[in-house]
């Protein structure tokens, strides 16, 4: 599918999808403020995840290989793609388990958190995904400089997300009395954000590696590492697409 599109339409598609995602995120926030329907929030999150998985993570590429020579780079890339997706499926069971834990312990309540900060870090992560997609697209079209700039922006935004969660949100929550040992809400909040932050952290390491090697022109021909880092980064975003409503939007806030 991507093979038939030129650079500008691919970039345009990235922008369009980002606008959709931004609107949906706003919609989520609005629903949470007004009529608090959990099913709608779930559906919106599923739509967002599907958009990211299809247009940013290019899940359809799993089916795209037409090469027959098993020793070719393209065939191996197909195998690597499959391996990465299998890994992501496996990993998503961790996050699924955390969601089960959250639903079981908290039900239709949620920790009392700073709503603006939550929306802020969510926006930062979403924007970082957009730049990641832009960087990957540019690299595929041979624009190394554009790739480096956009990856750097992604990295900075990702770092911003990490700082926002670990050094701002955690401190604010602890100051309000929500600590890991304060009860199920605290336990669920720190465990879920902590596990996600760990994945963001590893994603940042991958981005750094890809950026440094990209600067030396390593990916001008063999571009799969760029794609892999991008797919992983988007996956971390997809996880947050579910965690954000689960922690910030669903149900009634528990006062600490």
């Amino acid at each position, binding site marked *: 599918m991507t093979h038939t599109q030129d650079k500008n339409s691919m970039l345009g598609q990235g922008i369009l999808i980002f606008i959709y995602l931004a609107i949906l995120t706003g919609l989520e926030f609005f629903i949470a403020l007004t009529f608090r329907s959990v099913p709608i929030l779930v559906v919106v999150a599923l739509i967002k995840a599907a958009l990211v998985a299809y247009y940013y993570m290019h899940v359809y590429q799993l089916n795209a290989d037409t090469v027959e020579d098993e020793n070719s780079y393209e065939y191996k890339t197909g*195998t690597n793609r499959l391996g990465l997706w299998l890994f992501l499926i496996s990993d998503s069971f961790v996050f699924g*388990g955390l969601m089960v834990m959250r639903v079981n*312990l908290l039900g239709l309540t949620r920790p009392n958190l700073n709503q603006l900060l939550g929306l802020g870090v969510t926006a930062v992560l979403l924007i970082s995904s957009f730049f990641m997609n832009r960087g990957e697209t540019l690299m595929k079209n041979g624009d190394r400089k554009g790739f480096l700039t956009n990856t750097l922006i992604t990295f900075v935004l990702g770092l911003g997300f990490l700082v926002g969660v670990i050094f701002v949100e955690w401190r604010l929550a602890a100051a309000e009395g929500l600590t890991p040992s304060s009860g199920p809400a605290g336990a669920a909040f720190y465990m879920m954000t902590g596990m996600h932050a760990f994945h963001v952290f590893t994603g940042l390491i991958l981005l750094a*590696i890809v950026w440094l090697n990209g600067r030396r022109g390593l990916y001008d021909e063999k571009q799969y590492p760029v794609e892999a880092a991008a797919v992983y980064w988007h996956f971390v975003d997809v996880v947050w697409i579910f965690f954000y409503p689960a922690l910030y939007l669903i149900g009634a806030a528990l006062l600490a």
Partner: protein
Amino acid sequence: MRKTQPVATGLLLLIIGGAVGYGIGLGIDLLVTQTLNFSGSVASAFALLLAVTAFFFGLFGYRGITRGLVWQVLGTLIGGFFITGIRALKGLSLFGAFFFTEPALVFGALAGVISFVFGVGVVSDWMKWARGLDTPEHHEDVPGWEKYFGVSLDHKVIGIQYTVTSLVLISVGGLFALIFRTELAESQLQFLKTTFHLFNQNGPQIYNSLMSLHGMIMIVSILLGVSGIMNYVVPLLLGARDMAFPRMNAFAYWLAVPASVLLLMSLVLGGFDTGWTGYPPLSARAPVGIQMFFLGVFTAGWSSILGSLNVIATVLRMRARGMTAMRLPIFVWASIATSIIALTATQLIGLSFQLVSFQRLLGMGFFDAAKGGNPILFQHLFWFYSHPAVYVFVLPGLGVISELLPVFVRKPLFGYRWVAMSSLGIALVGFLVWAHHMFASGMNEYLRVPFMYSTLLVAVPTGVKFFSWVATLWGGKIQTPTPMLFVLGGILVFLLGGLTGPPNATVSTDLHLTDTYFIVGHFHDTIFGGFVFPFFAALYYWFPKATGRRMSELWGKVHFWLMTPSFLVLTFGMMRIGLLGMRRRIVDYDPNLMGDQVLFRLFNHDFRAIDLNHSILTIAGYLIGISVLIFFINLFYSIKHGEKAEGNLWNSRSPEWQVPSPMAAHNYEVPFEVVGEPYDYGLPGSKYVQFVSQPEHINHSEESAAHSEKKRH
């Protein structure tokens, strides 16, 4: 003579290392606790670590596994001191009965695992890639035995590494079983008394630790055994040169080594008394050993996840030409089904143990009722893996049975498609049955009936396998060399395990049966029938492929005829006393459980019916131990001195037997193409595979046709 020298050096250094380690540990313990504790944990931990490391140093020198172990020890110490330093800055307590405090031990152990993989060198290629350096596609192994003690990317070497590690763990777990089986031979405490002290535990605590570790060490050894067979056999059956991701394959194996070390450390560091299930709140209160146990299982879990990821990718991407879905060897279908479970569900046991670990470290009240947590939630997360896990154990075993039966019956596998699909069916239904372990747990009552239905449903695809096996045997021309004996034994024992399952599935009867020796007998039947017997069958069957020599038929048969009756006596006895009220996991039992009449007096002990029953079980246990010992001697003797195996030893249609043994370094020098059905025994002139002498000259349109057909499946 020259060949045995490294082993002798290793054993010598083992003793010296153990003694030196014990001395160091004793000294450190004296410094910290001001007491000279000869049976304490610290001395034993140092002795264990130094002894193992020194053994491999003597055997192999400072490289490969030795370097990994040294790095693991150093990493643990550095990680531990790092946290201790932070605690010093915060003014918290620094040292305890286990030298380090619990957070320091956990962090140290984690750092130890990471150090191990760096030390052994299995991540060095990835590190080079991260720095933008290129590495050769394949590293050539040195010939000889030494390649098995260092990092190799060859799936055959890794498969053997897995298998050997699995056998080592089976011996350790079996040894534990014999120790506590001895204690159980008579009622009351004989040697594991409350006055007995070892590793900071008294007798009953040691019993609990050994019993718990027997469970988990056996589980890990089975996971490694499964990986071993899959690693060795699957690429050969597919005609692939190697697994899809050789480096990750090696990485997955080498994770299992520090995991095994951690599991052993859990015994030494205070043990734990929770059983392998580690239910909180008991596990939240257990000694620090449980943290080592959690981390060991977590690491072994990752090994299993990455290994199965590799298997799936290999099967999907690296099949020989013409190997369509319905022409896959049946063992490959079983491997796929197993790998789907291991890839996904394993994360949940890791997560559940992680949550308990954090509950202990940070006071996070996931499962702490006093903090609003839910102890039952753990059981749901835990069994979501741990029930499907039994299908991870048995599906490859059932695959081996289905794979070997046609060879020794000289008849096609009856209903190939149905057998293949039943594996997937078991795997998928297996995801929906976990709560049948919790019928008495106090979970929501309305969950019990749906889980009863789903559990009983598993009987259907399992039944399809049994009926198909019987139909395969019917009207065949049956031969019974050792591998076939184990296949038949596996079917019989698994049948007993399967038939004792439905009473546990129907809720009301399960309320009587759960947590008794009936369950113990039932699951030993399923695991022995579903894994242990087929595993031995596979070892006897593929041993000649790996070594070029055969194992002794005579001693193989002795092994079988000693193990099978003993095992049947063992499990029947377990189920009998379980029904009468013998609970699981108890160090001592009511002497009047089967009546208070004294049958006879022996060794200064009144033998009542229950004592007699348990003594018989203990003797049966020892006989199984002896039979496995015979197997080990046979195995090691045959590596060098076994009868030379030439050609197609079992007269199989499978591709790996069409080329000489042992297998060449890169598998098939000439690639093959699948031209027929895999199990068409008795069809004159048919062939499963055909070797393509010059692959470059294949007509291009044929090639793409073959490939597109392959892709469709």
